[in-house]
Every structure is written in C-alpha cells, then in structure tokens.
C-alpha cells in the first residue's frame, strides 16, 4: 500500500540535515547534473514534468519561469515563499526543518535555469526551528561551494540568504511577500506590473513555494517523464497532503498526485473519529470551497480535478469536519481569520472581511436573522474581483460555500436564537469578550 516517497524520504534521517549527510543520501547530484545542462533544457524538463506551483495557485512552474525577461543584464531575484500560513497547511515547515538542503538544491537549480544570482528565503517569523535549520544549511552551502561565486566550481554565481517574516498571513501573497522583504508592511502590489517584470526592489523577480522548489532536484534526477508519471495528467510527481481536523490519523502524507480525497481520508488517514461521521471537507486550505461528505469527496486531489469540482487544491491542506461540529461556528472562525489578516489596503477587503465577520459573529452568538445569510452572499459580490489581491476572494469562498451547501443548518442555528458550542451542539453563554461591539 505504500507508494514511493521522494520529498519526505530524508525526514527520518537526521543526518541528512547536514551537508555531508545529505550528499551521502544522494543529495546535490541533481545540481551537478543540472550544471551540465542548458538552462532552457532545465525549464523544458520542469514543464514536461508537469510541476504545478504548490503554494496555492497551481500555476505550471516551468511556464512561470519563462515569464522572466530574457537577456536581462540587471539584477533578478528568486524569493522563496516559506511564509506557510494558509490554515490547515504544514508541509513547508517540515521540509525546511527536516531536509533543508533539498530546498536549497532546488533553489540552486532553479536560479541556474533562470539566470538568477540572488535568492532570499522568506520564512515566516514563527518558524524559529525551520529558520535555524535553513540558516545553518545555507552556511554549510557557502562553506562547501554550493553558494558563492562559483557554484560547484562552475561559472554560475549565487547568493542566498534567509529572511524572517514577523506574523502576517498576507505575506504569503507573492507581492505581499515582496513588499515585506523590501522592509515595508506586507501590502500586495498593484498588478500590472507583474513580479516577473518588476518585483523585489523593482527588479524582475520569481516567487516560488518551498515544496515546488523541493521537487526540482527529483525532476532532474529521475527525468521529467518519470516524475510526471508519478502523478496524473498535467499534475506531475508525488504531492504532500496535510490532513487535520476531526480525522483519526491527521498528519503529513506524501502520496501520488492522483490520490482521491476519499482514498486519502479512508485508506490513509483512518477515517472519522470513533462514533462520528465526516460531514464536510475543505480540500485545499481554508480558502478553498468546502465539499460535502460523502457526496462530493470522490474527487482526485489534483489541481484540475478539484477546479472542475468547483473548488481547488490550493495548498493541499485537507481540513475534516464531522457531524459533531457546527458549520456556523466553523465559518465564524474562518471569517475572523480573514478579517484579522486583511492588510487593510483596499476598501472592499478591509471593510468587507470585517463586515461579514461581524455579521457571522452576531449569528454565531444567537442574534442572527435569516436575512443575514443572503446579506452576506450579497456583500461577497462586491468583494470578489474588485480588490488588489485575492484575500477577499479567499474569504468569500468559504463564506459562500458554507452558507450555500449547509443552508438548512445555518437557518436552524439562527431560528434557535442561541450561541451553540463548536462541537457537541450545546447552548453556550456568549463570552464577555464577545458581548457588545465586535
């Protein structure tokens, strides 16, 4: 039943966190091979390998690499997005903590392929251990000639430094990350211009997720076809799936990119907790529209299949909700999250996320009205598509899908007129901190 693993194969080998241990386990062979290839060849391999961006958008990585200007003589940058903050996601932290060199090797190959000589690894501030692991690994890389003026003795030079965040989900948005790296608030930037043209310090910039880069050495080692074959059409390789919530065996799973949600939950994660039934599943991080169980979970966990099913793979963070849990309380939790994380720059998101979170809080406290549900849905139409970045959309997707797919439950909650517990459907007092103004 166990399928081949690549991304997590060094996790149980602490030695592999060191340069020597990593090399012993086969590391940096891909970089050596890549340096003998032409940059265009590497980009082709990554395209043929069907590597999709694993930060959330699922954009084909090889295509993204091709957006950088050719024959550009000024500085270009790679920003590694290690700001893992999408609720339910916990794959990039372990990748950095337990196999930092894998990511660094991916960085080196990617930079060589795109003629980038400066990379920053933007690591969320709360990831102290991961930061330390990456920092140490980078020091080793400089000592061993992986980074510096002559990467592995070649003519290719590469500088790479770690950079901490300080607590803001919006810095996971690629231009929010760039603003933060520039020493400002994490305000996403107006697009156009796109980062490939004008990004960090106004220079052409490539932003890639940790996991995406970690795949690159494997594509080079085994070849694009073999990597693609591990997955399904247009979604190559193995994939890291993060499973959390009300499930028997939550955790990080590396599986073929063709596994179905049903297989993931029942064959790998042990199904629901004892005595419970799975009611709903968020398939790709809290910003992904929710799926009803059991009707909608027989879907393949790849970017395109989930897109067709009206939701998305996003960061592959699967959050399981069972029949003990109130969908109203669950939505209240998520809308509070988005209101808290909205950077505040543009009107529809700043005011909209807060407004819908105030409404759902009032509903959750037992003071809601039936009209509030359609009011929320109406507010969403003024948010989606009208903002600088997609955080407004990310708040709208759960709001819309929870209310539309679980409408009877929302109406029952409202009719009851009382605050109910998160799990167990018990009446609760409204906490003092929540009474009165939001």
């Amino acid at each position, binding site marked *: 039943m166990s399928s081949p693993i690549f991304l997590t194969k060094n996790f149980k080998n602490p030695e592999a966190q060191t340069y020597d241990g990593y090399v012993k386990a086969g590391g940096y062979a891909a970089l050596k091979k890549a340096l003998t290839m032409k940059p265009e060849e590497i980009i082709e391999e990554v395209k043929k390998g069907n590597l999709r961006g694993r930060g959330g958008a699922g954009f084909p990585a090889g295509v993204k690499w091709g957006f950088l200007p050719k024959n550009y003589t000024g500085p270009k940058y790679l920003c590694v997005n290690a700001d893992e903050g999408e609720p339910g996601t916990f794959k990039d932290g372990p990748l950095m903590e337990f196999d930092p060199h894998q990511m660094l090797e991916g960085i080196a190959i990617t930079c060589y392929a795109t003629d980038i000589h400066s990379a920053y690894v933007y690591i969320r501030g709360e990831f102290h251990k991961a930061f330390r692991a990456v920092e140490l690994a980078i020091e080793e890389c400089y000592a061993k000639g992986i980074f510096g003026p002559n990467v592995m003795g070649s003519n290719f030079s590469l500088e790479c430094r770690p950079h901490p965040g300080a607590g*803001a989900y919006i810095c996971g948005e690629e231009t929010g990350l760039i603003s933060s790296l520039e020493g400002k*608030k994490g305000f996403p930037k*107006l697009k156009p211009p796109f980062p490939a043209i004008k990004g960090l310090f106004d220079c052409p910039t490539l932003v890639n997720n940790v996991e995406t880069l970690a795949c690159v050495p494997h594509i080079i080692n085994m070849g694009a076809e073999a990597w693609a074959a591990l997955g399904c059409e247009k979604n190559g390789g193995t994939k890291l799936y993060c499973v959390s919530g009300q499930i028997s065996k939550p955790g990080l799973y590396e599986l073929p990119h063709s596994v179905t949600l049903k297989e993931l939950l029942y064959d790998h994660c042990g199904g629901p907790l004892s005595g419970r039934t799975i009611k709903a599943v968020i398939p790709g991080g809290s910003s992904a529209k929710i799926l009803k169980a059991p009707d909608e979970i027989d879907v393949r966990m790849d970017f395109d299949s989930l897109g067709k099913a009206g939701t998305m793979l996003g960061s592959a963070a699967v959050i399981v909700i069972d029949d003990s849990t109130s969908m109203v309380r669950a939505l209240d939790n998520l809308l509070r999250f988005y*209101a*808290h*994380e*909205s*950077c*505040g*720059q*543009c*009107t*529809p998101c*700043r*005011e*909209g*996320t*807060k*407004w819908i979170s*105030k*409404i759902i809080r*009032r509903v959750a406290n037992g003071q809601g009205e039936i009209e509030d549900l359609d*009011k929320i849905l109406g507010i969403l*139409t*003024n*948010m989606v*598509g*009208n*903002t*600088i970045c997609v955080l407004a959309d990310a708040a709208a997707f759960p709001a819309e899908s929870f209310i539309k797919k679980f409408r009877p439950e929302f109406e029952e909650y409202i009719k009851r007129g009382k605050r109910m517990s998160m799990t167990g459907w018990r009446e609760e007092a409204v906490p003092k901190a929540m009474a*009165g*103004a*939001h």
Partner: protein
Amino acid sequence: MPKLTINGKELEVPAGTNLIQAAKQVGSEVPHFCYHPGLSVAGNCRMCLVEIEKAPKLQIACNTAVTEGMVVFTESEKVKKARQGVMEFLLLNHPIDCPICDCAGECYLQDYYMAHDKAPSRTEEPKNKKAKAEDIGPHVMLDKERCVLCSRCVRFTDEISKTHELGIFGRGSTEEIDLAPGMRLENDYSGNVVDLCPVGALTDKDFRFKSRPWFLRETNTVCGGCAMGCNIVLNTNLNPYNKVGQKRAYRIYPRENAEVNQFWICDEGRYSYHAIDENRKEGASLSGTPVTLDFGLARFSEGLKKAIAAGADQVAFLLSPQMTTEELTAWKELAAALGVTQVAYGDDIKRTGKADAFLMKADKNPNTAGAAALGIAPAAAPLLAKAADGSLKALVVVDHELANAAELAGKLEFFAFVATHNTPTDKAAHVSLPRAMYVEQDGHFTNVQGKVQEVKKAMEPIGEAKGGVELAAQLSMRLLPVKATA
C-alpha cells in the same frame, strides 16, 4: 498616440495617459478617492473601477494606461454596482457626522453618494470607533473615524514635503492614519493635506467652523505672499454686506499650475489671507489723524505740487514690488509726467523671509520681476540717504516700512505714504493714503520665473481704499494740466 473608445466616443491621447485622465477628455468623470495627479498611484480605494472590453475583471482606471484600440465603459451596470459597493464599504464605519464636519459641501463621500449610490444603509453592526478631533499640528486637525484610508496625506508627507510625519498604522479595518512617534505635522506645507483629504478627516484649524463652503465665492487669482506667485483660489463671503471689521476673506487654497506650483502652496501663503481683513488702512490720514480720502488726496497733491515747484530733482518716489504691474506703470508715468526722475522700487529694503528649495522664495513680494521689467531702478538706498541728509525735499513711499520714518517726517518737507495696512510709518507720514490690496483690484504680477500672471478682483477695496491706478489717476487730475482734445 493611441486611439481608444470610451463610452462610445473615440479619442486619441498621448501614450501613458491613464483612464481617469482620458475619460475626463470625453466628459466622463471617473470617481476616485486615492488617485491624485500630483502623487504616486496607490490604487487602494477601488472607486475608479471601470469595465474594459476583453478584460475578465473590472480594472482601476488610475493604474491603467491607454492602449491602442482599448474599449472602455465607465457607466456600465457592472461599474455602477462596483461603485455602489465601494461606497457602501466606505460608509460602513463612517460616522456620517456631516452636521458638525467642516468638509460638508466639498466632500467626495457626499458628492459620490448623491451621484453614484443613494442606497440606504444595510448595516446593523456597531461601527469601529476611533479618535476624533485630534490636534496633530499647528494647522491641522485629524478625525480618524472619517478617514477613508486613501493614503493621500501619507504620500504627500513622503513624496512632496518629504517630512514623513504621517503613516497608516495597524492592520485591517482598525488601521488608522496617525503621526509618527514623536512627531507633529509641522512642515511648511502642512496645510496641503487638508486640500488633499477627500473627506473631513483632515481639516484646517484656521478654517474650522468658520463657514460652510456653499456660502463662499471662489476667485481664481495668484498669491501675493512671495515671488513664487502660486496660483490660488480665494474664498470670500461678501454676504452680509462688508462693513469695517467684517471678515470678507475666508480661505486660500492652491490651484493647479504645472509650471509654477503644481498643486501646492506653502502654509505662509495659505494663511496670508488674514492680512486682507486685519489691520487694514481703510481711510486717509494726516500724521496719523484720520481724514476723508478726498481731503487726503487734496493735501497729498498740494504737498507734492509745492515740492515739485521748488524742484522736481528734490522729489523721489519709492514704489513697491507689492504693487501690480498696472499700479507700478501708473505711478511711474505719474512721476515722469511730474518730472520726477528719482524713482525706485526698493529691492534692497523689500520684505524678505524664509526660503526653501521648493515653493518658498526669500523675496516676499509678488511683483519684483514686474517692477524690474518696467525699468524702474531697484535700489532705495541712494534715495533714503538723500532723504536722511536733507538733500531731498519730498519723498513718496508706497508700502515700505521705514525704521526712521519719524525722523524722515521731521526732516522732509513732504513725506507721503501710500499703504494697505496701519503701521508706524503710516502714522508718521504727513499724508497717508489707503491702497487696495491685490485681491481688491484686477492686475498682473510677474513671478520669479518671469511668468506674467493675472490677479483678479475678488471684492471691493476696504473702506475708502483705492487701487494704485486709481490713486495715481486722482492725483494726476489734481496735479497735471488738462489736455485739450480736438
């Protein structure tokens, strides 16, 4: 130059023009809060969203440059809904305290609500509370609840005054404009943020509660505070009927002129309007004793006539770079007609003050260049020296404060003064006539760049004051022989 279509109308504009500017040219006003042509693009208010053919989402007009063949709709149903949406979001936490807000009548929220919204409020949630009526500097009050977080004021202090006193602090819907720690809004251009603020978040302490804007008339003129000649609008209220002691001028704010002051004015110029109504010389006087204008003119012309009869070479005119070019011309011609050759405009004794690399000029006179261009001699020193040592019998001074005025009054046989305000020199002079200010007459100033700019009459001269041209005319009627016609 790209050709495009906006609301069905074709136009051709230079490459790089944004859609707000382009739409204006076909008579379509795209509403906006954060966009300002003098500042960088922020794109955060989202009010200027417009529909562009082939674009899947609405695009902000302020950050979209025209392209060849672009087809734009600024009044489609989608656009109207988006605008209503933005208005609703902005009004969610807005206190809507128009009855006590200075901005009412010139507020973007009010104007856009009437033009693009008109929907009743749907919110039942408590509004975010923030601090109101905070004194943030010598000239500006901040009301954080009214702020729509457009960031115009922050961009101004970063990009124009470059003094960085303001920022947007916090995150999300509770973020607010505030002063940087330890700072006050104390730069020489602080008043401009009030013009920039589209709502009543930033208001002018000087103007606070003084008048509703719909009672104010607007006159396009030029500031008389220094040689820069920033283009301004002067706000006046001439109703009730202006009597002595009644305020007529209420406010100055800048007018756009790309070549002179762009969109800005310094605080010194902005608040110089007080001088229009304060401490004005409203009537003629003899050594400080008030007399009618007629009497004053009579005494003035008698004294001057006597002095000239004794020898025009012992008479001097000290004119002022405060005068309009027309006033200077009239007095120059009067001097010539009287045979007075010693005429100067006092470049060496004129008012000077603070200067900077931006708009403030050390020369605090609006028409130095105009006076020079007329060929009037600059230096007053030779004339004043002669007056002091007794070789001048008569001196006519316009609007220069002389430290030794009392002494001169004793030495000279005829010491005449023409002034806009009450000063020690005015009191010392034998005869003193009241002059109208630049806002009380039509005329021209030439600024430090050599630009000739129009000043417009916004109100009748105060009391019995008259413009310099008319005063010269009155004197010449009394002093010069009438030329027979035909």
